[in-house]
């Protein structure tokens, strides 16, 4: 009923401003675009194949064809969170002082900078790449190897870009919503993106080449606890206030991803006037 027309414009298929900019660069990076097109095609085909023909009469209906499996994995993750991750994050918050945790957070994030820079470049976003490079230099040099986030304090906020977003900018549809074991909410496109970011991560490549695999595992563990510690209260609130925690998380994930991809708030929903409500 409301906003029936909106259903037709699936945000993941709409050409974003950035992808248009990417096209302008076609002459510079033809081979890159060719491989992108192949990847985009391959993923969109899968996405279409798994997308139900009718996503519902409601413009805000979510597509989740694998909901049954997803709910099982979600339940498993919830148990892992309850018995391991959340308690670990609580201990971490209790015994490690605030400034130290901030430093750890900044350090971990600074190590991700090469990925942010690369993805900005792959999206044809040279401003974004300059921004991420500025942050990386500032924090590495002035922030003592990244333990102080000097850049944010100076008005250059962190804007993570991952390969899932890059694929989206290239026009790849999200594919079905997925809940990954241990990793949590995702979709087919973002799962591929996560894999590419992981394999292409210079820190990981360095660690594996120099027999420092343990360092890599430590980083993963600390990142997980750090990330969880940032949202202790918000997740508790959500869990307590939700009628259907699974559906809430799914909605949050999809809205956040849309905004992250567009680098601006997602298109605002329509709020029709109900002053003349239909009978009944």
């Amino acid at each position: 009923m409301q906003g029936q027309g909106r259903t037709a414009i699936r945000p993941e298929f709409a050409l974003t401003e950035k992808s248009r900019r990417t096209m302008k660069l076609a002459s510079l990076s033809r081979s890159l675009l060719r491989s992108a097109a192949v990847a985009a095609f391959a993923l969109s085909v899968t996405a279409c194949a798994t997308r139900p023909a009718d996503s519902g009469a409601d413009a805000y209906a979510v597509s989740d064809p694998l909901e049954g499996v997803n709910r099982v994995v979600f339940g498993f993750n919830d148990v892992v969170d309850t018995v391991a991750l959340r308690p670990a994050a609580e201990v971490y918050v209790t015994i490690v002082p605030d400034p130290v945790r901030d430093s750890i957070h900044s350090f971990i994030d600074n190590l991700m900078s090469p990925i942010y820079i690369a993805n900005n470049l792959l999206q044809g976003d040279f401003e974004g790449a300059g921004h991420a490079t500025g942050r990386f230099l500032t924090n590495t040099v002035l922030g003592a190897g990244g333990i102080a986030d000097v850049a944010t304090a100076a008005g250059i906020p962190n804007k993570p870009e991952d390969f899932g977003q890059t694929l989206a900018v290239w026009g790849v549809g999200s594919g079905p919503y997925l809940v990954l074991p241990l990793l949590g909410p995702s979709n087919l496109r973002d799962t591929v993106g996560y894999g590419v970011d992981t394999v292409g991560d210079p820190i990981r490549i360095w660690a594996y080449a120099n027999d420092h695999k343990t360092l890599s595992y430590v980083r993963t563990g600390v990142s997980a606890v750090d990330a969880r510690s940032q949202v202790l209260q918000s997740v508790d609130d959500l869990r307590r206030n939700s009628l259907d925690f699974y559906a809430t998380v799914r909605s949050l994930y999809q809205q956040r991803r849309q905004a992250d991809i567009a680098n601006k708030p997602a298109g605002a929903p329509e709020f029709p006037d109900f002053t003349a409500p239909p009978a009944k």
Partner: protein
Amino acid sequence: MTVDNGRATATFGPTMLTRRLFVACAALLAVSSWAGRPLLSPAFAQSADAGAAAFIQKLGNDAIATFSDKAKPRQQALDQFRTLLYKGFDVPYIGRWVLGRYWNEATEAEQAEYQKLFEQLIVTTYAERFIEYSGETFRIAGTAPEGETDTMVTTQIVRPNGPPINVAWRVRKRGADYKIIDMVVENVSMGVTQRQEFASVVAQNGGKVAGLIQALRQKVGRAG
């Protein structure tokens, strides 16, 4: 959206650093802020409706004034929260919007009970956060027209602990009154989130609004 540059510079001022480091710092910051400038362009250059911003400012000031007093009895604080909620938000409108197409499928009795439960859900969800007020402040970051009738008022909520949160308020003018009809926290619309959650609950109960009402009863009964 924008961060106060003046304050940031003061924190990392020359007194903390040797002169040479300060010069290096200034150079690097100049480079980075040049690189970052296009991203910080004033998205809210033209103001849409000054009245909407003033309305949010006043509502926020009232909330802070109300919940700063910690000696207040709990029931009184709850009542005041409800008063502020109705002063600021068009609760019945939001309730109806959130139910989406199921509104028309519900009977009148179901609609009435749903609206009552929806209000209680809002109170149980948010009242605690306001009553436990711990020194947050806010500032209006900008306003922009939204849709044909509304104004989006963007605020930044500064917390004593943790990074600031960006919250945008969608404000609709009704006659001389302003009312909030949606709240967008870090780019996530609370209205859309709740709508998708409710739709999921209805779907799991065979497409029946009665199932949602039952779930709401349990939720507000247990939490409140």
